[in-house]
């Protein structure tokens, strides 16, 4: 460990030095980009396929999902697209355990692949290495060579706001979704068998939810004669809060900016964990926790534990994106809420949702790329409907078909013969590369066959959709100096919020201390953080 630490420290020092050197060059990087674009453009067809006349090979770094073949070019969709485009990609695929080291090493040592394709690039690194010139600024390329992506930007205004750096530059292409079921991040699923057993109907208010959970606790709905029911659980307390907070009017601009939303009375930016409504939410959660209606292990839970509890039929309700990820043998028992919960003050809002922007840094072109134009045309296809279909379903006739009603699905011989010991994702990963998520593309609900578009999750999303905030923010962008300051403030303040929230819910701290806690946040620099966010927000509004 010591060795690794010292290596990381050395790496950071080197990064500083390299970035210091890089600064002097940023001025003319715009020119070299443009020259390169012109020089390479001769080999590129402006529209249609193939993209290049002479075969072109590009290298790419990519995150490998465990379900996928280690040789990414073995995936049918890539073989097909290589034939279509004339561009061969040399994939350097790394697992999620290794990708961060590999990506940082490539950036710090300036040994860049031609493109970064799904590399978990943090937002801050996009702006930082973009400004230093490691990534090509894409604004002009998008304008000239990416008709599909341009159309997407016009269709979804929040996306354009979300992907630009503070100065308006675009260095990365994002992962986008157009599917309420994916955009509604966490949904509350309730065990219908149990509801029938205790003679309750699906709750519509927070009070009804409390009654239902209490009935679950006392009514022995799993009929084993033991009081082992867990009325409500989730992977973490935060995920339980996400499905309830809307009823208290919190997070009324979605999840794009974490704990920030708009104060409904003044229409100004609000850090809601310091609001009175948050206190009411804590009072409610504390009541649930004290009466053992929330899993007492929620602070140490993880996905596997929730799954295991479900296998024992001990769970009355849980918060997750879909049913199938957290319930196996009793998956059919779970149904989403029929409507968004109404809170004590009459708020009926569902705020565990984001806009169309899934993640910002899904795709970057590096400065050493020999042909940025061809690369831009190569990636632009996946923001079209056909391209998205190819990524999520593969090739018509070989991996998917369209039925009489116009619905698309994988060929039955593929998905109906899943061998023992392998998963759905493993089987379809021979044909399509989507396993692991966050591809630079626009995900369309009709083509996506993952857990979020299973009927139970889809229906749950449909029920909640009318109660989503009218505007869902994309994450704000910050200038480099602001970002550093924000990061250090957030580490302290958010850490305090998480810690105190847990204490309030567990009852370790009395809620009379709430004002005390707010004062503490103020002392830690909440005002300054608010200023930074307000500046970013005013840029965002433009």
């Amino acid at each position, binding site marked *: 460990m010591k*060795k*690794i630490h010292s*290596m990381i420290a*050395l*790496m950071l*020092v*080197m990064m500083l030095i*390299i970035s210091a050197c890089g600064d002097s060059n940023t001025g003319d990087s715009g020119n070299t980009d443009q020259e390169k674009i012109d020089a390479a453009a001769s080999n590129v067809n402006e529209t249609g396929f193939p993209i290049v006349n002479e075969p072109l090979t590009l290298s790419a770094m990519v995150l490998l*999902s*465990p*379900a996928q073949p*280690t040789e990414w070019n073995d995936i049918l969709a890539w073989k097909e697209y290589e034939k279509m485009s004339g561009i061969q990609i040399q994939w*350097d*695929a790394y*697992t*999620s*355990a*290794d990708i961060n*080291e590999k990506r940082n*090493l490539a950036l*710090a*040592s300036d*040994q860049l692949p031609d493109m970064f394709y799904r590399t978990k690039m943090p937002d801050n690194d996009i702006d930082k290495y973009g400004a230093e010139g490691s990534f090509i600024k894409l604004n002009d390329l998008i304008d000239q060579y990416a008709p599909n992506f341009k159309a997407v930007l016009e269709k979804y205004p929040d996306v354009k706001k979300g992907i630009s750096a503070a100065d308006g530059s675009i260095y990365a292409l994002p*992962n986008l*979704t157009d599917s309420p079921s*994916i955009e509604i991040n966490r949904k509350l699923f309730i065990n219908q068998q149990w509801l029938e057993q205790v003679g309750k109907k699906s709750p519509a208010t927070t009070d009804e939810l409390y009654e239902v959970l209490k009935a679950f606790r006392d009514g022995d709905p799993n009929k084993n004669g033991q009081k082992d029911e867990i009325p409500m659980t989730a992977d973490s307390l935060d995920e339980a809060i996400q499905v309830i907070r809307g009823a208290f009017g919190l997070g009324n601009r979605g999840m794009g900016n974490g704990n920030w939303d708009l104060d409904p009375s003044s229409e100004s930016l609000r850090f809601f964990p310091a609001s009175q409504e948050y206190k009411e939410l804590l009072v409610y959660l504390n009541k649930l926790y004290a009466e053992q209606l929330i899993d007492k292990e929620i602070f140490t839970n*993880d*996905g*596997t*534990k929730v*799954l*295991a*509890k479900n*296998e*024992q039929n001990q769970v009355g309700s849980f918060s*997750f*994106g*879909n049913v*199938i*990820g*957290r319930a196996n043998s009793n998956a059919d028992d779970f149904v989403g809420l029929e409507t968004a919960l109404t809170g004590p003050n009459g708020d009926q809002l569902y705020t565990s949702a984001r806009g169309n922007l*899934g*993640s910002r840094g899904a795709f970057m072109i590096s400065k050493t790329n020999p042909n940025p134009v061809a690369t831009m045309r190569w990636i632009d296809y996946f923001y079209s409907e056909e391209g998205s279909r190819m990524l999520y379903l593969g090739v018509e006739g070989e991996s998917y078909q369209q039925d009489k009603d116009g619905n698309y699905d994988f060929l039955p011989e593929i998905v109906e013969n899943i061998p023992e*010991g392998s*998963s*759905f*994702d493993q089987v379809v990963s021979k044909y399509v590369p*989507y*396993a*692991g*998520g*966050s*591809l630079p593309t626009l*995900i369309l609900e009709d083509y*996506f*066959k*993952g*857990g*979020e578009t*299973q009927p139970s999750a889809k229906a749950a999303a449909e029920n909640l959709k009318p109660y989503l905030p009218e505007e869902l923010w994309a994450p704000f962008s910050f200038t480099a100096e602001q970002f550093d300051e924000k990061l250090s403030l957030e580490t302290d303040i958010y850490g305090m919020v998480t810690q105190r929230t847990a204490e309030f819910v567990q009852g370790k701290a009395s809620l009379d201390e709430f004002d005390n806690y707010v004062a503490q946040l103020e002392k830690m620099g909440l005002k300054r953080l608010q200023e930074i966010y307000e500046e970013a927000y005013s840029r965002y509004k433009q």
Partner: protein
Amino acid sequence: MEHKIAGWGDRIFTIVIYTILSIIMLVTLYPLIYILSASFSDPLYIAKGEVWLLPKDFTFSAYQKVLSNADILTGYRNSLIYLVLGTTINIVMTTMGAYVLSRKDFKGRYVLALLFTFTLLFNGGLIPTYLIYKNMLGLYNNLWVMIIPSAISVWNLIIMRTYFQNSIPIEMQEAAFMDGCSNIRTLTSIVLPLSKPIIAVMALYYGVAHWNSYFTALIYLNDHWRFPLQMVIRSILIQEDMSAMAGGEGESLMQQLLLIEGMRYAVIVVSSLPMLLLYPLVQKHFVKGVMMGAIKG
């Protein structure tokens, strides 16, 4: 316990010592037993935290999965290659280096030793090293990167030199010269036969280091079929929950979670087995060897 216990004081002393030792033994042993038990249990019970001492719902399924996992088998093979090849080269290089440095009649050995020691304290840092390996030495994504850069551990070299200096009388070597031995002959016929304990210890040190190393592979290797076992295990153990990512993992997430939970422990057992088997074989040399090298130095 054949000697007579003299008095109460001694008896209490013995009891206290034994109690403390037993506690320490339990603390050390428990994780091992837990891992062993968990590797034979149904993953569902591990996830629920119901396994704590003995296997629950005894099953070999985790081992079946581990042993039928192609990545793990390739990793095992690679690790064995790196282990055998690497340790052989380590021993040859270290012995030769240590012998030269141990000869008092070798001029300039202090300078040489100093240079060696210098690398013990300072190195070029990750990124310059990376650039040199990749762009100048051609070691990137090359089998030899696992072996050449770590061919000599200066620390082990010093231990070995001290052993040569202190345990093999210089007179013996002089006698060999009188009888007409060359340097090479002295090393192979006189010094090496007398150094078996230290060689065993060095083999163990180097072997364990090779077996456990993953950082070099993480940084310099690219192809999955070259990965040593530790890299494969790492990617199995540090499997992040990807459900948070847009697009989710859906159905397979659940299967993966349980699969990983089950394989986790079996993989640990399988991967530590060779080293656990090696220790008892070398142990008798171990105590002897390290003492000889270290204390008199």
